[in-house]
């Protein structure tokens, strides 16, 4: 980055500087030869502006300050000098607001000598080399026709761009005479320099063989022979090209400049990797297009999935959105432009050839129409043939007026097309951005869902005087369909529940929460357990959860060791006696949620001190190892037998370890939940 030359010195007004930064600003700006005046407030700055000529204004915004009001106040409707906003925080909203309010540049703390220098250059339109400019739309490109005669565009990338037959080149041309690595383009002092890289048949610029040449706009480059493809060099960003080409007598400079500024800002948005402002961008494109063409209304129409064009943005020539979602426009012309990819500009529908086919449009009172395709181009290197420019037309930019239009020189139609292609690119980018955002939002919601689910589950350990319960849930995805709960009943009993919703992930988790909700709403002491479960089943089945069902086990433990339970289609829990014998708890009925008239019966067992109940979901016994074998009930019962005299916690951790080591090499394919309860252990 070149330093400012000593004679580029300006009179700079700095309003609202922070005390902490004054020294740096002062030191740097005075050392580089500028005249610096500090103003403590906006009012003071305005006084200074009245009394002397200022080249550049820095306006420091306070935290939460509004860019628009500050700018308005300091420069009024007719800015006397460009204003650089110094914003406390880099937010998209602020950048956009600053741009709308007409700021020449915007910088963010911490201020550095470099950022100050760069902002002076940018604001005073010195040779641009700041960050924004580097990111600005492509500096130069080649236009050429591919083998099938299709128009292609290759952006010349910085700092080095290579051409040749090898697919390793930036532009890959598969013609006879083209060497594998034929030529390169580098930037020297801001100029594009084309160099032959020792090619066999030479490199030509405008028909003359060269070893090295500075390229200028419109130069024709050919590789290998004068019969080969002509690459036409275009320099300057698209917007500069527009400015350069536009007729100086036409009063379109302002809008183009506005758009140019926007281009830079848009690049800045891209740099901040956020394009949240598609609507703003489209509105700007339409406004600019209306100004360019002098028409009354402008629309962006995008192709929908069904192939129809629908309105995406509708504006009038007062830079205001048009109300409504349906507008009376020509039907035929947008579709014609969309199909043919060719612009149509009709300055008087009632004059010239084919007027009769526009009768219906004329009947709407419309006289002139301009319509260009929204088209974006990307150059792909397919590795085999020459680079393929993929063009996609995503809609049209349509403008109309009730008046007879002005003559549209080719340059203006070109400008319109460029505008449309920038808009198309922006829409395309915004769509990509939205896709990735949707995905991120989904992930965020999943995380929240997991947190909620975790919060709904009780603490996995619970101890009563006569009872100890511990549980462990290992969901297969972020969240799962297994569910467990504990209940301390008023009569001193302890309730415990374990459920498994068919399926996995979010849908299963939602249903698990529903059951938990229904269950919490039941008063567990009011009715026999079997009746309560029947009621829960009916409520679930009535909600119509389709073919999703829940296997469920509910137990009620009394202090004296008597346990009443209902097993609704759940893998039978095991009553593990202290001496190692086991009993399955199977009494109950069918799974919950399928048949509303299903009935349930309760089972009864009595626990002796140091007996355990082991509950689990099918994910445990169906856990697979690398050979595709199931963990199985045999392995489970053997394991329990050897741990019959351990504590509930020990049994749980040994189950967990053993299933995890069993299936160590295979991804978990179902949620696994286990619960172990110890009676007077």
């Amino acid at each position: 980055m070149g330093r400012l030359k000593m004679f580029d010195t300006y009179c700079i007004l700095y309003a609202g500087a922070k005390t902490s930064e004054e020294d740096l600003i002062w030191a740097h700006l005075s050392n580089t030869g500028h005249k610096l005046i500090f103003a403590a407030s906006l009012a003071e700055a305005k006084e200074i502006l009245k009394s002397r000529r200022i080249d550049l204004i820095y306006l420091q915004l306070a935290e939460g300050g509004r860019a628009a009001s500050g700018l308005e106040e300091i420069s009024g409707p007719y800015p006397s000098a460009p204003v650089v906003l110094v914003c406390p925080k880099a937010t998209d909203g602020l950048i956009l607001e600053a741009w709308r309010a007409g700021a020449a540049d915007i910088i963010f703390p911490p201020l550095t000598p470099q950022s100050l220098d760069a902002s002076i250059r940018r604001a005073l339109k010195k040779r641009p080399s700041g960050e924004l400019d580097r990111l600005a739309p492509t500096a130069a490109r080649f236009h050429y026709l591919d083998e099938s005669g299709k128009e292609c565009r290759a952006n010349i990338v910085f700092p080095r761009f290579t051409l040749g037959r090898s697919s390793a080149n930036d532009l890959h041309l598969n013609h006879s005479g083209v060497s594998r690595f034929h030529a390169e383009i580098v930037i020297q002092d801001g100029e594009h320099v084309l160099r032959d890289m020792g090619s066999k048949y030479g490199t030509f610029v405008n028909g003359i063989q060269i070893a090295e040449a500075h390229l200028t706009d419109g130069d024709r480059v050919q590789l290998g022979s004068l019969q080969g493809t002509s690459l036409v060099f275009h320099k300057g960003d698209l917007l500069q090209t527009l400015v350069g080409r536009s007729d100086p007598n036409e009063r379109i400079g302002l809008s183009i400049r506005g758009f140019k500024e926007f281009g830079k800002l848009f690049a800045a948005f891209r740099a901040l990797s956020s394009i949240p402002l598609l609507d703003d961008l489209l509105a700007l494109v339409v406004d600019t297009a209306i100004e360019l063409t002098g028409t009354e209304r402008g629309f962006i129409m995008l192709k929908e999935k069904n192939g129809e064009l629908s309105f995406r943005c509708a504006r009038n020539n007062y830079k205001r959105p048009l109300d409504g979602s349906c507008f009376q426009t020509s039907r035929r012309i947008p579709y014609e432009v969309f199909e043919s990819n060719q612009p149509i500009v009709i300055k008087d529908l009632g004059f010239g050839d084919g007027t009769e086919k526009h009768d219906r449009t004329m009947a709407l009172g419309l006289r002139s129409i301009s319509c260009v395709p929204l088209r974006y181009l990307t150059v792909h290197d397919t590795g085999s043939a020459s680079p393929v420019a993929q063009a996609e037309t995503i809609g049209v930019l349509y403008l109309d007026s009730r008046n007879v239009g002005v003559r549209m020189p080719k340059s203006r139609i070109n400008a319109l097309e460029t505008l449309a292609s920038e808009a198309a690119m922006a829409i395309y980018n915004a769509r990509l951005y939205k896709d990735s955002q949707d995905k991120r939002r989904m992930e965020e919601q999943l995380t929240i869902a997991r947190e909620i689910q975790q919060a709904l589950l009780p603490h996995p350990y619970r101890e009563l005087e006569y009872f100890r319960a511990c549980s462990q849930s290992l969901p297969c995805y972020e969240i799962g369909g297994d569910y467990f709960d504990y209940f301390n009943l008023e009569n001193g009993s302890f309730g415990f529940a374990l459920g498994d919703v068919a399926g996995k992930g979010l849908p299963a988790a939602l249903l698990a929460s529903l059951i938990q909700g229904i269950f919490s709403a039941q008063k567990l002491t009011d009715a026999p357990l079997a009746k309560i479960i029947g009621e829960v089943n009916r409520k679930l089945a009535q909600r119509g959860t389709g073919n999703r069902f829940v296997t469920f086990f509910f137990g009620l433990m009394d202090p004296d060791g008597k346990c009443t339970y209902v097993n609704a289609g759940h893998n039978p829990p095991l009553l593990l006696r202290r001496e190692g014998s086991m009993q399955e708890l199977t009494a109950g009925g069918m799974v919950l949620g399928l048949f509303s008239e299903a009935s349930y019966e309760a089972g009864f067992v009595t626990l002796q001190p140091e007996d355990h109940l082991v509950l689990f979901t099918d994910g445990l016994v169906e856990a697979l190892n690398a050979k595709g074998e199931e963990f199985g009930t045999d392995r489970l019962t053997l394991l329990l037998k050897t741990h019959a005299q351990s504590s509930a916690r020990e049994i749980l951790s040994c189950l967990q370890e053993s299933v995890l080591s069993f299936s160590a090499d295979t991804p978990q394919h179902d949620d696994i939940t286990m619960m172990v309860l110890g009676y007077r252990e």
Partner: protein
Amino acid sequence: MKINMRTVGDVKILDCSGKITLGEGTMAVRNTVREILQSGGTKIALNLGDIDYIDSSGIGELVSTYTSVVNGKGQLKLLNLTKKIRQLLAITKLLTVFDVFEDEEAMLASFR
């Protein structure tokens, strides 16, 4: 999952093979049965002898297939349950919901 349909008299037998799991094949059973019902068939049998894997979603699908057949005034019978399906239907206590046969002749006879 693959479904092969044969007709024996007025009974449609769907020979199913492969997996019945979440998202895999469950729609196929449902759609085939719906088509049979729409074309006026009422006697349907699912031959599950060649199903090598079924999970709880697959069981759910069997139940909803059963429900839709019954609602369509038809009859659904299951033929040749694998050990795994039988076990799952036993645990979930859904075995009693279905009319289950090990023998095709007996199954056909039950429709008469």
